[in-house]
């Protein structure tokens, strides 16, 4: 069995002392930032990018992956205990989880979330291992036209499923693509939009954009809002272990959530957020046992289902990034950036050229999930204490790490100034209600998209119809178009807006 051999190779890599350490460190850090208010995985991964110069590629990516799924765990802890979703994917967990906590059942809610996530994480890992190789084979058949169309689909999918205003999100993608045009043209060698500034001929560093917009911009936005009042249910967390009845109620929800999350995670733009929303809707529609607590008042299925789904989605959203080199969300975009920093060209060839990295990363996800359950359930008291760290200590620390990281990128203060500028831009986006995540996706994909477009046009001798006469490419473009049409239908549009209305 190929699958077993591959997984054996992966576990061999993942279980070296060094890699276990980085998986642990990533999971720990992820939980920490998931719990701490006002600090998300995008900003944290951006903060850590400069320091991965000192690491090998495999441990570096293992650590970054750990941060991503660790943040999903940590985010649900805050959702349950203080009704503040640490991550956007835990928004629906807060609905029933917080009610459970108010009834003194915080322990059972946390356990359901943790165990459900762990199960989903295991399944997600196996799915990646099983589906990555065939998808990679398919990707090798792609020419430049197909790649271009795939990226269009990926970008459209990312905003159709996961943002507020559709047209503004598409505009943000294009703005990102344009920012990616500030560089030296790969084909002709002409520097573009550089205003004779030598640093700009290499392009804007994506770390500067990510830290500026997601780090500094968010800090400014948080500080300009009045401080929120938090009520923490700390003393109620005693009985961690759920009752037998809880298990009985929760496990079908976990199974459904895992299945749903695994499928939705693979879709471009899917990932954790959409998965948890969908799972909650499914749980609400599914008939429970007589005498169950109604939804919205502390039903354990409303915690277990979405939590399993968001973790499964977080895992399977690695599939498009690992097999095609196309990031489905902002965190994956940073992972692609991290691979490029380490000199690995993301794409289908990673599996054959760096099998240790590829399978080691996949296996480490299972290891990381196991650690998370150990970190989260017995140590819950520590995380609760951290919840009370005031933001006024936190944001100067974030700024210190960002600034030092920016300086060390090129041992030059240019990136520090760029990030300061993008901090202003980020606050502007916040004020104008423009989501910054699509901009980052566009920025990362911009140069790849241009290269594929121009190569496709060269091959077709300038014939634009090549994109719709090739069946694979036409299908991908059609799918993108369909997505836009469907979400623009009035009935779907109002539902979609309703779903995003709950977000903070």
């Amino acid at each position: 069995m190929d699958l077993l051999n591959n997984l054996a190779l992966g576990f061999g890599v993942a279980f070296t002392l060094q890699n276990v350490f980085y998986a642990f460190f990533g999971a720990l850090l992820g939980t920490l930032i998931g719990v701490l208010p006002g600090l998300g995985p995008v900003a944290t991964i951006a903060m850590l990018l400069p320091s991965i110069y000192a690491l090998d590629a495999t441990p570096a990516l293992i650590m970054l992956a750990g941060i991503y799924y660790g943040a999903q765990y940590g985010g649900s802890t805050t959702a349950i205990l203080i009704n503040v979703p640490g991550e956007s994917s835990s928004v629906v967990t807060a609905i029933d989880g917080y009610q459970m906590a108010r009834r003194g059942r915080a322990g059972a809610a946390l356990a359901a979330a943790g165990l459900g996530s762990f199960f989903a994480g295991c399944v997600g890992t196996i799915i990646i291992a099983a589906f990555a190789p065939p998808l990679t084979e398919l990707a090798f058949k792609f020419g430049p036209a197909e790649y271009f169309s795939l990226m269009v689909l990926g970008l459209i999918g990312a905003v159709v499923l996961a943002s507020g205003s559709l047209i503004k999100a598409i505009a943000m993608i294009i703005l990102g693509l344009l920012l990616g045009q500030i560089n030296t043209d790969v084909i002709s060698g002409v520097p573009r939009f550089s205003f004779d500034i030598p640093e700009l001929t290499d392009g804007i560093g994506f770390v500067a954009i990510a830290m500026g917009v997601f780090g500094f911009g968010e800090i400014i936005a948080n500080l300009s809002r009045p401080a929120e009042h938090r009520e923490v249910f700390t003393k109620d967390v005693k009985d961690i272990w759920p009752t037998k009845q809880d298990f009985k109620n929760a496990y079908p929800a976990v199974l459904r959530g895992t299945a749903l999350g695994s499928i939705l995670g693979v879709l471009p733009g899917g990932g954790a957020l959409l998965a948890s929303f969908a799972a909650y809707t499914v749980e609400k529609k599914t008939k429970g046992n007589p005498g169950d607590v109604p939804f919205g008042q502390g039903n354990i299925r409303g915690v277990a289902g979405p939590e399993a789904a968001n973790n499964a989605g977080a895992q399977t959203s690695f599939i498009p990034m690992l097999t095609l080199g196309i990031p489905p969300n902002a965190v994956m975009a940073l992972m692609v950036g991290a691979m490029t920093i380490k000199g690995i060209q993301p794409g289908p060839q990673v599996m054959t050229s760096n099998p240790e990295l590829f399978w080691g990363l996949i296996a480490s996800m299972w290891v990381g999930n196991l650690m998370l359950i150990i970190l989260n359930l017995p140590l819950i008291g520590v995380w609760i204490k951290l919840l009370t760290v005031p933001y006024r200590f936190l944001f100067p620390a974030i700024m210190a790490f960002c600034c030092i990281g920016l300086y060390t990128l090129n041992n030059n203060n240019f990136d520090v100034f760029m990030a300061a500028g993008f901090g202003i831009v980020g606050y502007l986006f916040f004020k104008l209600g423009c989501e910054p995540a699509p901009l980052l996706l566009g920025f990362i994909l911009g140069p790849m998209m241009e290269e594929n477009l121009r190569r496709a046009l060269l091959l077709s001798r300038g014939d634009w119809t090549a994109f719709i006469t090739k069946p694979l490419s036409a299908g991908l473009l059609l799918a993108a178009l369909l997505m836009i049409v469907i979400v623009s239908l009035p009935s779907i549009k109002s539902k979609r807006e309703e779903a995003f209305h709950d977000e903070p």
Partner: protein
Amino acid sequence: MKIKSQKDFWSGLMFVVTGLAFAAGATNYSFGTSARPGPGYFPFGLGVLLAVLGAVILFKALTIETEGGDRIGHIGWRPLCLIVAAVIGFGLLLPRLGLIISLPLLILVASLAGDEFKLKEVVINAIILTIGSWAVFIKGLNLVIPLWPSFLAN
């Protein structure tokens, strides 16, 4: 004409202006032909597309009624200026004065942007973060960061 959604009006305007600026800038580079696209081909097309989308957003902002006018609300000038100033100051001072002076300064200026400012807490925070950064970045990761001011280093 009345603006019906402030947020959309200004963001639409931002997209139109940026799109046109990029499209105009792209005309400085060879456009090429469709069969041989030059360096100006892609950015020109994108710039025009962005301007068109911006115009649609602008049009909607002026025609479609929204609840309460979708106001932008007050702008937090104090955190905006202080945070940006702290970062730029750090960028300017680090090569000259080293981490030992510029980092505490960054933390001090940034902390002024918060709601609550207690000097004692800020000083403790600054000391811990400076020692921590030195331990992690200079000792631990061996990154090349000037620690002492350049006039002392020699």
